[in-house]
């Protein structure tokens, strides 16, 4: 287990997440792609903390910030899914072509 190995795995997770975000139609599946990419970001940060920063505690705080980002993304994302469905009866990206009401 080396820093390069951890970062390569993180890159693979981010790549799978990007593929999911760009290819999926359902809003919830798009969000899952974002979460997978953030998963890779957290792994990369943890690896850098462990192997390149000498265990400086601020590195772990960076991972906690990524956790916050993920929690906020999920909460606001689900709220937007509910709001868009209520107003437009749309649950896929193809269902909303404009930003108008």
């Amino acid at each position: 287990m080396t820093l390069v190995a951890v970062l390569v795995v993180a890159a693979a997770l981010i790549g799978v997440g990007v593929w999911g975000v760009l290819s999926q139609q359902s809003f919830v599946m798009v969000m899952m792609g974002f979460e997978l990419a953030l998963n890779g970001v957290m792994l990369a940060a943890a690896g850098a903390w462990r192997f390149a920063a000498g265990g400086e505690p601020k590195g772990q705080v960076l991972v906690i910030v990524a956790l916050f980002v993920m929690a906020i993304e999920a909460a606001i994302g689900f709220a937007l899914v509910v709001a868009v469905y209520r107003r437009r009866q749309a649950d896929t990206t193809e269902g909303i072509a404009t930003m108008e009401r």
Partner: protein
Amino acid sequence: MTGWPVDVAFWVLAVGAVWFGWRVFRTDSMVRATFALLVSFLDVGAIMVLLLAEYLGVALFFMMAVEMTVMAIFMVAYMMNPAGLNPMQMVHQPRVAVVAGVLAAAGLAAVAWFADLPSVALVAPQDTIRELGLEVMGESMILMQTAGITLLATMIGAVALTAAHGRFGEATSGSRPPRLDPDAEPVEQEMARPDPHAHHGGHG
């Protein structure tokens, strides 16, 4: 933690994390997709434990167990095929997406491979949790407080976005475009009721 058992565990967990992440977008069942994502997160959490970031790993276990349960409920509520009994393909621009994903992964992996990354051993491997606690309750306190306020704003925003009725009636009834002149009467605008048949579709 060092030695070959850690390396073997790391590679098993790493392959599991990526493979289950890939399965999220390849399975027909929405619930299975959600739990595949959960397994991917649990694998990464276990890798964090191997990296001696035990607090982060365990926090990831708990957070993702709850979040993916909520997500499974949303998946069943908003998708047509919760049990995966029918084959389902709900994708667009699949080729562009694959190319972008491969390019992103390859680019980041190339940076990791070719960059001259520093190598600094852990200073206090036994004390990572204690040091994190001192950091969070000390120098990084302002960051935690900001995060707390941000999460509060998130909760209020989520409720405001999802509420069907506000204090003054329906959530959409008060939305009128403002005039440039503040004293002028506001523009009355008929709220177009969404036609339930017009935009319904997309369940491939």
